[in-house]
């Protein structure tokens, strides 16, 4: 192996990363633009962040979005985890194939169709559209993602741990809470975070299922952009990127640190008699 990367590798790396991050970098840079024109650099300023604080419309939309994301992510995590447990644990029950297919369908279903069918359902049963219909729609969308994440963890789970708990006198329900759940917790948390972000950035399904008074942030941004991009939007997006990036960085540092600690403990234990 050559230590120095070849020009080909360097070029493909640069091209790949610019393709991924150039638009985002541009957006972040222009959010600090003093000029009102989006494409003309007028010097550094934080004025758009200040004006954002006074924009009640955007603040309201952000609050709706966060509440929708929190509630839907939590419900989707509970439902998705239960679905994953049923699929992995209870073997070949009647209709298992059908059930697993149905849990995963929303993964590949075009969002437009999911949104439209939910809209038709809400209209048919006479459910007033608004905050709760968006929440329900987001649970439908994200629970299958949670199920996939939790299922992959459960497949590698050592069943004899649960059997050991049963053997020691712990009934099945308590065994799930005391043994299974703590051990699949990382996957459940990852599922929750995935569900939260899915809900946070969903535009299509929210547009179909929302009603008066329940405008989410993506919907607000989209409607404003149609009237022309303002640097204020850039500022909102920069804040969102900041929040997501911080979450990802903290999560990866925590994982890395745990791995290092575990490897060290295992080395020490192996050296012991």
């Amino acid at each position, binding site marked *: 192996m050559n230590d120095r990367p070849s020009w080909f590798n360097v070029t493909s790396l640069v091209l790949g990363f610019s393709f991924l991050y150039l638009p985002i970098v541009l957006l972040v840079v222009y959010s600090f633009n003093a000029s009102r024109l989006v494409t003309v650099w007028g010097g550094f300023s934080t004025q758009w962040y200040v004006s954002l604080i006074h924009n009640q419309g955007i603040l309201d939309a952000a609050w709706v979005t966060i509440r929708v994301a929190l509630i839907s992510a939590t419900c989707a995590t509970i439902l998705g985890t239960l679905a994953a447990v049923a699929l992995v644990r209870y073997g070949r029950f009647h209709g298992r194939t059908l059930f697993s297919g149905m849990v995963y369908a929303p993964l590949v279903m075009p969002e437009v169709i999911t949104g439209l069918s939910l809209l038709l359902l809400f209209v048919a049963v006479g459910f007033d559209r608004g905050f709760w219909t968006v929440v329900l729609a987001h649970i439908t969308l994200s629970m299958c993602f949670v199920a996939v994440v939790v299922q992959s963890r459960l497949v590698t789970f050592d069943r004899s741990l649960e*059997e050991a*708990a049963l*053997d020691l006198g712990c009934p099945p329900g308590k065994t799930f809470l005391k043994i299974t759940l703590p051990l699949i917790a990382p996957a459940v948390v990852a599922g929750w975070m995935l569900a939260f972000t899915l809900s946070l950035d969903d535009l299509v399904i929210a547009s179909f299922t929302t009603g008066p008074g329940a405008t989410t942030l993506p919907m607000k941004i989209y409607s404003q952009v149609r009237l022309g991009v303002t640097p204020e939007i850039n500022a909102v997006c920069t804040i969102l990127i900041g929040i997501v990036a911080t979450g990802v960085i903290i999560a990866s540092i925590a994982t890395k640190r745990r791995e290092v600690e575990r490897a060290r403990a295992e080395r020490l234990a192996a050296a012991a008699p």
Partner: protein
Amino acid sequence: MAADKAIGPIRRSFAPWNDPKARPFIEFRNVTKRFGDFTAVDHLSLGIYEREFFALLGPSGCGKTTLMRMIAGFEEPTEGHVLLDGQDLVGVPPYRRPTNMMFQSYALFPHMSVWDNIAFGLKQDKMPKPEIAARVEEMLALVKLGPFARRKPHQLSGGQKQRVALARSLAKKPKVLLLDEPLGALDKKLREETQFELTDLQMKLGMTFIIVTHDQEEAMTVADRIAVMDHGKIVQVATPAEIYELPNSRYVADFIGDINLIEGRLAPAAGNGARLECAGTGATVETSQPVEAAPGSEAWFAIRPEKVTIGLEPPADPTKNALKGTVWDIGYLGDVSIYHVRLATGATVKATIANRTRLVERPITWEDEVWLSWSRDGGVVLTR
């Protein structure tokens, strides 16, 4: 030391299976277990007595683990009954059975410390806290893990994990302890040490231990009685010495230790014992152990390599309990040498010679013509 001396007589006189009045503590009554088309356990009946150290021995897939899991309650029999102390266990969930199991993978709860792992079962019984603490300390002392109480399982070595698993399964003082290949993951030296620790522990605690293993040496070392299994059936149940010296079939003889099998036909016995005409050699074998089969039927003479004497001179009566052959190969193992002797029929017979002096020059060497002989008590005639 006084306690160690007391164990000998108890061990020697412990044989409830020979006592017609003794009632088995665990009983399988005509138990069958099927998984789909596969029959794991096939119309099996077996009694295990209180305070017995019982081994289920067999190759993988013979049904020994299924049998143990039926005692623990993780499997229910398809047919038949499993009784513990006279009570039918069928339908009783695992968390209500007075048995505990030590798992092959140890199954230590990775998110709990050693202390909490051992206390887990006691907490399920709603035992008062001071009693739990006392019992956990007692168990930690028993397996010599006191200083490791606060560690998590991933901070322990393999041998330490094994002892935590043992302490956890003993903490509730179960009536029956089930051990599923408990020493499989340990290296050879540690395994041998632990085997003797297990027998000591079982004597000290006075519990019934049932061990599942595929390692015949392990079963021989620890168990009072061994059940050799094959294809969901028990082939023989007996003490280690009986299994080794008086196997009831070629399967058992071949599974336990090394054995020579010589094919032949039964001849009318002279007095007590059995007589076999060996095929192709013209030699006759006489044993002191009688067989229940008609003269003329097919049978095998089974003899362990260490019971065969090898010599250059023919024995006094070369027509009885003797065979002639050529040394084909010699395996030198340090403590013993194994001679592979090829007979005129092409079959090979193994004879083990203990090396009592330093072997610089062998009295018997490759391609020598030798005589193999043995006493009437050396081998057995098997009819299946």
